[in-house]
């Protein structure tokens, strides 16, 4: 099979590491060859962060480049737009609608481009936007945004629901399993 690409992006500190860990687990359990590439350090301090996940029969490069991603999963609205160029034709953007102002916006040096997702939709990009923060809070913790988004990904993904749940059980600390299962379910069942 052709190698597939998934991009997980957001703002440093939002918990993208657990999302990629869960996704990695699901894909490894399915027997795929997989590579996950993250950047640690400087960019974690509230900067724009990105994780690349690639899977297939044999994966070489650990990074996803322009037009190679089947999914772009974003924890923040304009981060989805920042990395939209990575999406391949026919790919899907799944994004949290949460707005987090970057420093240039905070200090008034730039505008927050609120309508950028509409522009991408108008250009034919399929975007699934959801208030993952509200759903995470409904599940019991604002920190579960990552798992809500993974739930929404699962809805569009070829791997069965139960296998995701099994991977959650293998990935998450025991005391957080129920919370994360709930968050996953809410993300999975969300539709506009």
């Amino acid at each position, binding site marked *: 099979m052709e190698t597939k690409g998934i991009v997980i992006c957001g703002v440093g500190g939002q918990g993208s590491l657990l999302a990629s860990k869960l996704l990695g687990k699901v894909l*490894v359990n399915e027997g795929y060859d997989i590579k996950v590439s993250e950047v640690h350090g400087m960019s974690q301090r509230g900067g724009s962060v990105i994780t690349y996940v690639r899977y297939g029969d044999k994966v*070489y*490069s650990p990074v996803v*480049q322009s037009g190679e991603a089947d999914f772009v999963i974003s924890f923040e609205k304009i981060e989805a737009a920042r990395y939209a160029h990575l999406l391949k034709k026919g790919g899907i953007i799944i994004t949290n609608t949460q707005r987090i102002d970057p420093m240039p916006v905070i200090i008034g040096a730039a505008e927050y481009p609120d309508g950028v997702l509409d522009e991408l939709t108008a250009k034919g990009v399929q975007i699934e936007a959801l208030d993952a923060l509200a759903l995470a809070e409904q599940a019991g913790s604002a920190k579960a945004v990552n798992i809500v988004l993974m739930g929404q990904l699962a809805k569009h993904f070829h791997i069965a629901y139960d296998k995701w749940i099994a991977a959650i059980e293998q990935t998450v600390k025991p005391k957080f399993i129920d919370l994360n299962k709930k968050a996953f379910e809410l993300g999975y069942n969300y539709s506009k």
Partner: protein
Amino acid sequence: MKELMIGNAAVARGLYEAGVEVISSYPGTPSTEITEFAATYDDIYCEWAPNEKVAMEAAFGASLRGVRSACAMKHVGLNVAADPLFTLSYTGVTGGLVVCVADDPGMHSSQNEQDSRHYAIAAKVPMLEPADSAECKEFAKLAFDISEQFDTPCLLRMCTRIAHAQSVVELGERTVPEKKPYEKNPQKFIMAPANAIRRHPFVEERTKKLTEYAETSPVNRVEMGDTRIGIIATGACYQYCKEVFGEGASILKIGMVNPLPVQKIKDFAASVEKLYVVEELDGVIESHCNNIGVKVIGKELFGPLGEFSQKSIAQAFGLPVKETVTADTQIPVRPPVMCSGCPHRGMFYVLSKNKITVLGDIGCYTLGSAAPLTALDSTLCMGASISGLHGFAKAAQGEADHNTVCVIGDSTFMHSGMTGLANIAYNGSKATVIILDNSITGMTGHQQNPTTGYNIKGDPATKINLEALCHSLGINRVRVVDPYNLEETEKAVKEELAADEASVIISRRPCVLLKYVKPRKPVMVDPDKCKSCKRCMKLGCPSIRIKDGKANIDTTLCVGCGVCEQLCPFDAIGHEEQTMAELPPAQCVAQ
């Protein structure tokens, strides 16, 4: 058992399986996790040393005593440890000694993108470079075998995309080689001229033997595909080339980047029509090919800058890249920022407000250079703030004494700030040194250091007293301030700048991300009192924004540090109940 592991964890696993017994390192992105993961194996003694030179020398001592040892560092860390490395090349080892060094092409978290391969060449030691996590583990083990077989330290070169990329690793068992008894051997280990003169020919002879090894070693392997294009590549570049060409090119994958084979490259060159070298950073392999008379295309096509990718390589070869959709709307950049409640912010605000020239250093506080604080004037390397300030003050002949300071973190001070401070005392500049003591090594992700009172395992350790240390280094004026208290901080800065001698201000409050630091309730803005003066926005705090013309606090981010509260002239920001007096003391005790 198979496991998905980042390259650094796989290196740690390889060190473990190879029976390493002592690891001493200094943290530095992207190398830090090697030692962090190694420390999770109880069979290995691991430590954070104050700097990379100390770490490598500790590893040397362990090797001398007959066990397998290792150290890990980032590329610029090897500059610090270069001194022991060059002579370790002469002494060789008793127990195997592996030096892991992680380059950062693209400078994701570094001040330069130097190419560590030059060190292997200059120090005349072998260097391996893995291309995925499985190789990270295997090469870490092989590095010990090479180290012992050829009596040399062996370098293991990582880069960000290998160190921080996860791929599948097959786990093996740990085998500890028999400990060699300690025997005094002055001819080998006392590198005074008479002995060193005799060791140098050994080094040259060793390089010849290692080159022979490189000719036949399976780590340098040919993967024949289409013979119209031949590519020599290593590490991540090998992966990118495979991604672009698959079987559409023939590849000589180099696993041992120093010394490089000669005949193997000549044979490969003869088997392909056109030969390319794809290597990030400098043209090291390309120069070697030129030296042995093999014509290659390299840097003229790919350049020496940044990280490569399958896309950049395809473009360089003139191949089509994938179609894509982008927004026309400009997306504002999102640079990293100091966290909400970061204790550095109060000090930077004071320095910025008073228009003080600030020589900076390496750590989270480099972020003080960003708008709106723009508090820094320079950042060079670990420790350069203090030594640089001394030279700056001497050159200014008194004109800088009352308006220039330097800032350096607790860990960076222990790493290489102490010697600069000794120079200030000894050679008498009237410098004002600010130690930003947040009680942890922050930027690399919270590693303990000699001032925190804990070791790598989190167990209690000797806590070096910074005040006493600065006094001992000859500084009479040493004072501690809480950077959450702006008035106290400003007073200290002004008084110490006015003083007619050198002084140290220790700006002390633990990093807010430390688990034992409990956040206070977020502060709130009373919109009726807020006059939209935006004074609070001068802090560059990610929790403060303007909403409907008024300041507004993002309560999901705010940790209630109260610094903005002190800036508001209209008393519009505050906690409902808590006051400054309820803050935990600055000298927080870790759990």
